[in-house]
Every structure is written in C-alpha cells, then in structure tokens.
C-alpha cells in the first residue's frame, strides 16, 4: 500500500485510546486479578473447594434455579410479549411500561418486598403455608426472586421481533389450512426461536449471578437455600480470598460462556431477519 489509510473523521486515536484504557482499568485488570488470585489455589485446593458439599449445593442451586427460572421466563415472556404486541386493550401501555420494573427496582428492595409477600406470615405466604407450600426461606424463594429479576429480558428481546414478524406469513399458513395451533407451532415459534433463546440466555445469565433479591427471601440455609454468590461473600468474610476468587472464577467462566452463546444466537437471529426481509 503506497499510502497509510487515512481516517476521514477525527478522533479515532483519542476515543479508542480512552475507551480501551478505561475498559482495561475498570474491567480487565480487576478480572485478571480475580483469575490470578484463583490460580494461587493448587489442584488439591480446587478439588477440595469444588467437592465440598456446601459448594456443590450452592452451585447446583444457583445454576439449576437459574435454569428453571429462565425456562419459566421464556414461557411467560413469550406470552406477555405476544399479548402486548398483538392485542389492543385498556391498560396495555401501563403493562408495557411495568415490564421494566424489575430492571429499575433495586434488587435489595425487590428482595425484601418479595419476602414480605411470600414469608410464612406474609401477604400470600400465610395462605400458601396451610396448603403445604413454603416459598420464602426455601429453594422456592430463590426461584421466585430469580424469576422476578429475569422477567423483562425475554419480553424485551421478543417484542421488536414479534412486531416485525410478517402477519402475511401466518395468514398464508391459515389459508393453506393450518389450524391456529399448527400455525403457532410450525410458523411462529421457529421464526422466534433464536430470539427466544437469546432472551432465555440473558435471563439465565442474570439469574445465575443474582444476589441482592435472593439473599433476603432464601433464608440462606446451608446445603438447602444458599446460592453461590453468597458463598463467595462468606468466604471473603472468613478471609479465604483464594477460595472466593476460585468460586468467582467459576462464575465468571460461566458468564463468558453465556456471552459467547448470546453473541452466536444474535448472529443466528440476524440471519433469520435477513432471510425474512
């Protein structure tokens, strides 16, 4: 190349330089410290940490609970997005705005509010307890909190795609003799699938790492309703930095994995959109 490619608009060096430095100092350097600290733990230490019943139970609850909560949110989110996009009814705009409340409400506030509702003497809890249903201070409480914080993701990722989904395709399917259910299962769901999975993955990522709303309602009973982030906090309080870092690294690894999955899903849904256009 005879000439160094010139940038037409100004500010490339300064904006990229600033963004990289900032990101490096705020995000990458600290994360490097995390992995470095975790590497201080030898193989034996890792094995002991990961095979400890309390660790296993906490990881199981965080990941399993998040999975169930994200599944629930996928179904509920599809329903809410569908109704908000397809139907016009009084109060629609209000409901649409309220979908974002779990994003806006601080997690600690959500945590104590959910506890007030589902505690054995709470608003709903007092009626559920005689039925043998215990939510707060039990694994079910963890689920409720995880569902709450992950709820908006599926709705918000699905809405724009549903809005652009061509009604003609559905009508064509119906004119070809498909029933409503067939149309839904064979035409609509496949078109929404990549987006639905993206929303699911976002809700999952959020629920796995959730702390504030869960710890109030969970009761934090070791081996039963104790989540992984709480275990990290406890290890920190006992000055077990290597243990905390190791658990943190496990969670970070999962976050990165989900991030890659979401990026791949978005590329997939992007292709869908292109094909549809």
């Amino acid at each position, binding site marked *: *190349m*005879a*000439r160094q*490619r*010139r940038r*037409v608009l100004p500010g490339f060096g300064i904006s990229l330089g600033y963004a990289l430095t900032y990101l490096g100092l705020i995000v990458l350097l600290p994360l490097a410290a995390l992995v470095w600290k975790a590497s201080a733990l030898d193989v034996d230490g890792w094995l002991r940490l990961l095979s400890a019943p309390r660790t296993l139970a906490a990881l199981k609850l965080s990941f399993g609970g998040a999975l169930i909560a994200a599944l629930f949110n996928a179904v509920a989110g599809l329903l809410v997005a569908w109704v908000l996009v397809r139907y016009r009814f009084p109060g629609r705009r209000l409901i649409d705005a309220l979908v974002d409340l779990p994003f806006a409400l601080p997690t600690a506030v959500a945590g104590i509010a959910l506890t007030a509702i589902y505690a054995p003497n709470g608003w709903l809890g007092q009626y559920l307890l005689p039925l043998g249903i215990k939510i707060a201070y039990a694994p079910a409480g963890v689920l409720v909190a995880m569902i709450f914080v992950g709820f908006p993701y599926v709705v918000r990722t699905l809405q724009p795609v549903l809005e652009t989904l061509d009604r003609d395709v559905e009508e064509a399917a119906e004119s070809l003799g498909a029933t409503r259910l067939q149309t839904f299962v064979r035409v609509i769901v496949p078109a929404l699938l990549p987006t639905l999975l993206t929303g699911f993955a976002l809700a999952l990522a959020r629920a796995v790492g959730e702390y504030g709303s869960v710890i109030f309602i969970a009761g934090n009973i070791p081996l039963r309703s104790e989540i992984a982030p709480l275990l990290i906090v406890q290890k920190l309080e006992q000055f077990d930095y290597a243990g905390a870092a190791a658990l943190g690294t496990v969670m970070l690894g999962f976050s990165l994995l989900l991030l890659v999955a979401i990026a791949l899903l978005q590329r997939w849904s992007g292709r869908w959109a292109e094909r549809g256009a």
Partner: protein
Amino acid sequence: MTLELSHLHRRYAGFAALDDVSLRIEPGEFLALLGPSGSGKTTLLRILAGLDYPDSGSVRQNDRDLLAVDARQRKVGLVFQHYALFRHLTVSENVAFGLRIRPRKSRPSRAEINERVERLLKRVQLDDLGKRYTSQLSGGQRQRVALARALAVEPDLLLLDEPFGALDAQVRVALRRWLRNLHEELGLTSVFVTHDQEEALELADRVAVMNRGRIEQIGTPEAIYQQPATPFVCEFIGKNNRIPLQRANGVLTGGQRQLGADPWPGNAVGSAIGYVRPEHLLVSSAPSQGGWAAQLRHIYLAGGVAHLELDVPALGQVLEADMSSDEVAQRGLQPGQALVVQPRLITAFPLNAQGEADAAARHVLQPQAAP
C-alpha cells in the same frame, strides 16, 4: 480550476473499487460519472470530497496535491445521496452552518450570513421555508436545501451523489432541468454520480461511463450514445441488439449473411460480436431488399415510437427494431407478418479464443443495402 486524477487505485477487502482510473476535469464543466452499482463511481466522488483516500495515485488541482488537503479545507461542496441534512437545525441554520463555524477572522458578520442564506434560499426557491425543520420538507425540497448548504461555502468544486436517486419520477425531471440551468448560471465545476443514463446524457457536458472500477469511456453524451467504445458501453447505454458474428476468409458474416469485409488483420477464422441499435435496423416488407427474414412477433406502442419484436430464425434470436408509430400505421404492420430486417450500423468487436471482446479493435460497419 482543472482537476487531474491519475492512476487511482482503491481496494476494499479484496474488491477493486477503483482500478487505475485517470481523468481530467476541466474548469466549469458538468461531468457525470455513470455506471451500475459497485462500479466505483461513488468511491471516486468520495475521494474528490476527501471522505475516502486511494491506495495509490494522485489527485492534483492546478498543481496542488489535493490528497494532502483535509476534507474540511478542500473547498468542495458535497450533496449526499440522502442529503445528510442536520436534522436538529432549521433550513436556514443548515444553509448557514458552513459560514457560522468559520473562525472569527474569516467569518462573515451575522447580517452578512443572514443575507447570504436568504439569497441562496431564493436561488433554490425555498425562500419561505427557512424556519422549517428538514423533516417537514419533501424530498425535492431537502435536495435543494442540501444544495444550498453546499453552495453557501462557495466551493471550487460541486459534487453530487445520485442527486435525483431518492426522488419520484416527476420531481426528478423538473429538478434535473433546474439544476442544469443553475450550473450554467454559476459556472461552477460540477461532478455528479448517477446510475441513470438518461439523467447523465441529458444533464452532463461529458459523461464518464464506469464499470468494475474502470472508466470504460469518457466523452460527450452524443459520443457516448453514437460511438460507444466498448461492449459494456454498448450494452449499458441505450438499447442494443447483440448479434454474434463470424469471421472467415476475410469476410464478416452474421446470420448467414455477408455484412462486409473482415476489418481485422490476423487469424482468418474466428468470431466477433456486433451491436445494432433498434433505430439502426431497417425493416422492410419487400424480400428483394436483402437482409434477414423475420417474423413480426409483437408491436409495443410507446407514444411516438413503436418497438417491434422480430423473430429472426437465421440468428436464432429476437431483435428489436424501432420505428415511428406513424410509419407502423401507414404500413399497416401486423403481428405475424413476414418481414426483412437489415442492420445499417453495427459496432463490432472481435472475440479472442477465450470469447473475450477486444475493445481496442472496435470497428463500425455500415452494411450497404443490397440492390
């Protein structure tokens, strides 16, 4: 101000947007860059504006290296295809933008700016819309705001990217004539990019036809239309019938009829390609005239001109011939009728063994009507 572009190359990720482009732009001329999308015409325009840079080659303006000059100092007015008007500013503020941002020393006074903006808005016939926001304007009005904004800084060179591309057909024609008049009034050197040949041929002093990053031909609209220099120009500009020709024994034949002596030296046997415009096909009912036997398949009446679709078995293809509608009526031509067609003017190119046409060996044939 003469602009001298020489040997410009520009590649994007393995794709040659400009491939050795050289061009001289004369002061005061109105030049059209015409070509299909991806032919490199917009890249060339953006290089002139300072919004892109060639990998190699030079752009000189009266012996000044224009590539060393930043976009903001080039004194080039650019009208973007989608206008790129500042949406948060009114029409007047858009036009005044280039003046208001000048450093205090060279900035005209507020009154002068207002006066100049008003004059420009009057010139583009928008004098009562100065207070509007650009979102409240029609496409044609936005186009003229963009033009006024570019003219406000008194550029040496006016560049227009697909100036009529986003407008509907009626506005397009009106604005075209208006722009031509404006150019003549201002005497400004102007270059515009278009994929619409009608636009280029009607508006420009000279047209550069571009294809795959190269300039295929540059010349006046008449020259481009009457003497297309390459097979691409033949096919891109106007309508042309593409006829396979054979070279043998010093004679050029097409559809088993001799069309003339083989104009090219060298190998005696080979093939060539000939282009005949519909208006250069002579259609007669008398077989004695000579030419290809044809059957009239269909007549498409388009106002004063009629397009005749003729099936020519000797060529194994359908030719299109033009004739005035009056003549069709006078001669009582009917679909299904047997006719004779004869080409009066053929632009021919020899083909090499790989079937590629040699544009440099272009030859124009004028077959004589057989007695």
